[in-house]
């Protein structure tokens, strides 16, 4: 069955067919050429990008961009070339050259396009002649595949690219090179190692006294000590690991307080579970979740308002609450016992007459006091909850008061939950302090970053001379060392020392009248640098420590007070105890050192070339500038502003005068 529809011209006309085939081949070949050219260009770009990246002239994003461009270039080039049309005359010329047709095809294409073939017999004959000739030749032979002209460039460029890429792949070190790369034994002398071991022993002793299993971090610390003795780890890494481990130990200590609280709540839940109205709250306390327990108690109170309880139910509830209060009292008593034990240990540490270990003792003392405070806090918390529950139990004398009593109990649990939040904030602050201390350690070590042991030795000798105390070389970062350094422990005759690090400036002692060392609780959340009694810089986190214990207001009576201070330095312009303003924790990032508290930075800076070196100037500018920013940003009482600015005035690096050696 034949169709009346005419076939497309390119199906029947050998001239059109040949032109179409050649055009398709030419475009494909051109696209291939362009793709290879793009690949060559892309390889060049990628090599350039990787090379510059290797030379640290290009960041990672730019390198990625260069690789992306390199990958996209071949496709882009190929697409552009493939889309560019191919001239019919060029295709015809290809056919003429391939089959030696002496321009027959090109002339035929031109004549057909110009319409001459319709007017002249010879033109028609020329077109037909071209068609006849093309019938005898396969058109694809006119456009044979060939290697792209740029292909030879691909090999060297690709090889170079692979070489560069291989430089990015880290190769496993050979045993010889690994041995060569092993750090040399640290130059830690025997006194440093002894101090470290002493600290570990004390930690283990304290853990045993608190009834705690020695945490695994202590085992790791002992292992670290062995590595240091064997010289398998360098000083910087050792100090970093010490800091991490000690932080973990401290976190373990905090976890002890949390666990003790949880144990107490579970004990209280056991008593409350006996009564229907408080069963849900008991379940929440077993979790333990104080907030959910408070909600459950509120729901129970609401239910009692809807349905007043009978006298018997009231008695049951009262009994349950009292039993819960008794459980909490037992837990509070246990916390108090722990606190006393730690307090005794702290007193022994305070009375240690060993002068060489003074600073180490001070740190240990600070940490013990922190533990004491934690136990005290636990006891206080549990006691308050007990009082509230007791009060609620007493209030259960009538059906109307039952709901109010449960509301009060709910409020007590809610308060406990809120205190938990405060704990979290304090924990965050403590971590902030640790980060700052770590940064400052790193900054201090930067002065000796060359890792030359001789230099470390010189710095250590200088440090010992400057401190005048012959302290242990490795600054063991015991928990709480930075936050409580303000308490000097020398209450007698000092006019009331501040427990918060604010050094009593005018407090001359018991014989000289009222001291101005104020019992000033610092503002919560605002760490400041203050000088201590020995001239060292101490970092104090206001709000982390409890208020000062002595006010120094009675000139003839020495000793530390147990209550918050009532007076302050007359130079202060505002109420120094005013708190509640908005503050934001902030710190200055230091340089990687891995050792030493704040003062270590000063010593290293001085050791580099005098007391007012460029390094110390830079450190001072960073800290002073940051302190000024904080003072401007936060609502700091003017009295605190004075002390902070006074401190930075005192530690300002002096300009070296001409002629000064």
């Amino acid at each position: 069955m034949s169709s009346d529809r005419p076939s497309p011209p390119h199906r029947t006309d050998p001239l059109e067919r040949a032109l179409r085939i050649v055009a398709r081949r030419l475009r494909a070949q051109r696209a291939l050429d362009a793709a290879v050219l793009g690949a060559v260009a892309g390889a060049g770009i990628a090599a350039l990008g990787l090379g510059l990246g290797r030379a640290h002239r290009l960041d990672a994003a730019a390198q990625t961009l260069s690789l992306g461009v390199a990958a996209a270039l071949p496709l882009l080039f190929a697409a552009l070339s493939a889309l560019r049309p191919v001239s019919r005359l060029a295709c015809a010329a290809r056919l003429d050259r391939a089959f030696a047709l002496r321009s027959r095809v090109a002339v035929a294409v031109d004549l057909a396009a110009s319409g001459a073939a319709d007017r002249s017999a010879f033109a028609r004959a020329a077109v037909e002649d071209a068609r006849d000739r093309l019938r005898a030749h396969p058109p694809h032979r006119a456009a044979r595949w060939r290697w792209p002209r740029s292909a030879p460039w691909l090999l060297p460029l690709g090889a170079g690219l692979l070489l560069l890429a291989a430089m990015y792949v880290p190769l496993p070190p050979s045993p010889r090179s690994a041995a060569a790369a092993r750090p040399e034994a640290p130059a830690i002398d025997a006194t440093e190692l002894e101090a470290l071991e002493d600290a570990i022993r004390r930690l283990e002793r304290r853990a045993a006294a608190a009834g705690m299993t020695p945490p695994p971090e202590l085992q790791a610390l002992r292992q670290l000590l062995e590595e240091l003795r064997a010289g398998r780890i360098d000083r910087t890494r050792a100090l970093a690991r010490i800091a991490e481990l000690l932080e973990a130990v401290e976190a373990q200590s905090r976890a002890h307080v949390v666990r003790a609280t949880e144990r107490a709540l579970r004990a209280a839940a056991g008593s409350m579970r006996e009564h229907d109205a408080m069963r849900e709250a008991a379940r929440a306390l077993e979790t333990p979740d104080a907030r959910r327990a408070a909600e459950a108690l509120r729901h129970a109170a609401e239910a009692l308002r809807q349905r007043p309880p009978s006298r018997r139910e009231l008695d049951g509830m009262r009994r349950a609450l009292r039993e819960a209060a008794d459980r909490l009292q037992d837990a509070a008593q246990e916390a108090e016992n722990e606190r006393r034990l730690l307090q005794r240990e702290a007193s022994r540490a305070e009375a240690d007459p060993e002068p060489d270990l003074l600073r180490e003792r001070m740190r240990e003392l600070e940490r013990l006091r922190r533990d004491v405070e934690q136990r005290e806090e636990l006891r206080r918390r549990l006691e308050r909850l007990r009082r509230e529950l007791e009060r609620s139990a007493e209030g259960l004398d009538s059906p109307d008061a039952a709901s109010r009593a449960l509301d009060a109990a709910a409020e007590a649990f809610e308060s406990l939950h809120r205190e938990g939040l405060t704990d979290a904030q304090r924990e965050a602050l403590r971590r902030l302090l640790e980060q700052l201390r770590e940064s400052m350690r790193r900054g201090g070590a930067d002065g000796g970053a060359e890792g030359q042991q001789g230099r470390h030795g010189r710095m250590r000798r200088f440090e010992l001379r400057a401190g005048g105390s012959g302290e242990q070389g490795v600054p063991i970062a015991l928990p709480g060392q930075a936050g409580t350094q303000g308490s000097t422990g020398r209450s007698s005759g000092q006019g009331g020392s501040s427990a918060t690090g604010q050094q009593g400036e005018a407090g001359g002692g018991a014989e000289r009248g009222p001291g101005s060392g104020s019992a000033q609780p610092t503002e919560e959340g605002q760490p400041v640098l203050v000088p201590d009694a020995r001239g060292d810089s101490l970092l104090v986190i206001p709000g982390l420590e409890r208020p000062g214990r002595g006010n120094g207001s009675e000139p003839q009576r020495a000793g530390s007070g147990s209550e918050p201070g009532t007076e302050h330095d007359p130079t202060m312009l505002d109420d120094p105890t005013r708190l509640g303003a908005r503050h934001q924790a902030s710190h200055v990032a230091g340089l990687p050192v891995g050792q030493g508290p704040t003062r270590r930075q000063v010593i290293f800076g001085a050791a580099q070339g005098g007391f007012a070196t460029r390094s110390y100037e830079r450190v001072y500018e960073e800290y002073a500038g940051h302190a000024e920013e904080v003072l401007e940003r936060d609502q700091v009482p003017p009295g605190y502003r004075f002390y902070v600015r006074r401190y930075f005035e005192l530690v300002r690096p002096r300009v070296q005068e001409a002629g000064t050696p």
Partner: protein
Amino acid sequence: MIEPAVQQAVQRLRDDVARLRAEVGRRLVGQAPVLDGVITCLLAGGHALLEGVPGVGKTMLVRALAQATGLRFSRIQFTPDLVPADILGTMVLAESERGARALEFRPGPVFAHVVLADEVNRATPKTQSALLEAMQEHAVTIGRTTHPLEEPYVVLATQNPLEMEGTYPLPEAQLDRFLLKLLVPLPDRAQMHEILDRTTGTEPPDPQPVLDRARILEMRRTVREVAVARHVQDYAIRIVEATRPQAPSAPESVRRFVRWGASPRGAQAVLLAAKVRAVLDGRYAVATEDVRETAKPALRHRLVPSFEAQAEGIEADRVLDDVLARVPETVD
């Protein structure tokens, strides 16, 4: 399918020319390109300037061609004392049988179909210019009367490139009238043997006419019908343009060695000669190859060399080679 009439016309033309070549070849040894050039001029209706040293067969070629085509032939030996009347003809006083006397035109040697102007550069410019009208207009004006020349009319002029003394170089205007300038080379050794064999032995028979005047005119019409594609014509134009030193497309060699380039008549010559070439090759349209191959004989005498070219002995063909190498066949 090619129209049979066209196919036959082309085929017949090719056959006739083949017979003509064969007939001329009975007297002429070698010189096939020159013979093709002369046949091209005959079929295209143009004139040819043959340049070669004496004794290479120029006159014999022309005479044999005239004999083979059956056309009337005349030969003019140009000398310095030749006057225009010697070639054009003159009015003579003739007396009738009744004794009446009247001026009567006696045609000169230009009144022929094939005119051999031997050593045309030895005549004075006045005499050379007398040939100008005959070559261009195919007519001769004597007094107030114009005498048309009978077609086909072909002037085949020769000149000697060596003997410059006592010669008058052809003016540019007259050179432009020649369709082609053919260089007649010396025969090679094999051809020399053949020449000697033919000319020192028995006299070979004269060529016999294989064509006639009407057939030649018909062949000329066939040639004129050969198609020319636009891009081929454009190629010819671009070549001619490139011979002009003022043209932007002119190569550096043209700017240095050419004082004046080819005129539009040069493009006509190229295309006509290309048509003849195409049809003799059995094609129905001119190819770019035809244009390229006819460009040099059609243009070499139209380039006026500069002083630098004359001083350095730069031939026109060398400049044209550069032009052909630099002008692309197609422009996208």
